[in-house]
């Protein structure tokens, strides 16, 4: 019985695989919605993925690289898989997709505000829990490089928000 050759993964297939890999520190969001996938290239039996770091000091980057490599290898054990980190293009919080913003909000993490230069810390931001705009910035820094801490004066709930970068 002749073995039917399975068609290789397309670039869209690879993107779908990456979309299902959670961010190590905010596991509610996948790598594609977070905007850290810069490029996907498939040619013959080789797959090349370029990731970009959110913040340079983010320790999750190495975990992301390993997760992408391991996941692709488990699907395509014979393919040549290369996962590179690129600095050619900065990650910005604008890269988080609308779906990604919604999933962050639903899990209690405020989506990033529009990036402003110079940085504006007084932009109104809705509370992800009660929706009130009466929130204040408690700390421009947070538990990870990409997050800051706000406080909602309406429902008295502190919450984290992705920094505008």
């Amino acid at each position, binding site marked *: 019985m002749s073995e039917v050759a399975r068609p290789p993964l397309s670039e869209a297939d690879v993107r779908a695989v990456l979309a299902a890999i959670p961010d190590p520190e905010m596991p509610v969001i996948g790598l594609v919605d977070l905007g850290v996938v810069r490029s996907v290239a498939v040619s013959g039996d080789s797959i090349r993925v370029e990731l970009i770091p959110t913040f340079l000091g983010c320790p999750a980057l190495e975990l992301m690289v390993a997760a992408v490599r391991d996941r692709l290898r488990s699907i395509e054990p014979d393919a040549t898989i290369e996962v590179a980190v690129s600095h050619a293009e900065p990650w910005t919080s604008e890269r988080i997709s609308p779906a990604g913003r919604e999933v962050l909000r639903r899990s209690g993490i405020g989506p990033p505000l529009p990036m402003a230069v110079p940085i504006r810390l007084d932009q109104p931001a809705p509370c992800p829990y009660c929706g009130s705009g009466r929130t204040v910035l*408690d700390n*421009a820094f947070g538990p990870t490089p990409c997050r800051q801490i706000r406080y909602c004066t309406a429902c008295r709930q502190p919450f984290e928000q992705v920094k505008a970068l």
Partner: protein
Amino acid sequence: MSGFDDIAPALREPLAGYLLALADDEFVLGFSDSEWTGIAPMLEEDVAMSSLAQDELGHAAALYALLGESIGRDPDAIAYDRPAEDFRHARLLDHPRGDWAATIARRWLYDTADGVRVEALVGSSWQPLADLAALIAREERYHRLHVGTWIERLAADDGEARRRLDTAWERLGPDAATVLAPLPGEEALVAAGVVPVASAELERGWRASIAPTLSRCRLPAPPPVREPGSARQRHSTEFRDLHAEFTSVRRLDPAAAW
């Protein structure tokens, strides 16, 4: 990235030295400020200073990686296997972190000078450096905003905070401009556009940029650097202690995985 392949041979050594100075600055400051983790004057600052330190260590790691790739050396070996005297950070960072006022004063002096330097490097003719500088510059805006708020707050006090700030300023001020002291072989790098702006011009830009804050805070402008030739050499006893600390794990087990 292809290492120094696209860099003229005569520029490789000066460029390696330049990258090392940038990386060592961020590494030593990041490590020094990480000492506040758990003991900062308030919880918010504990989080903030730890995050700032983490950013600097991230910048250092990326710069050591770029250097390591260029000269064919393991970045961890560059960071952890050099004796203290081979470090090339600016003398400003040789001071111990001191009290909170000293930490803020030093950070403000460093971040304002480093900001001018990094913003200029975004225009480097060497793409890997220009790319990395662009990423670093975006993060550093948050640092300047944060320490900028703090220095004004300490300066506006008329009691202990102001006294401590003045004491720190007297000690740190004379070494502030070491961050922008010219590096060996810099002229050739500037001529090639790898370093887009010469140190002397960066220093002028830095002095102009900090003048309004200095005047508002009633702080004297930092004097010109003493002995600019050794601005990044002959490190202090305090730095040797810090070096012994940050190399201790590596010395204990060089093969340890992080």
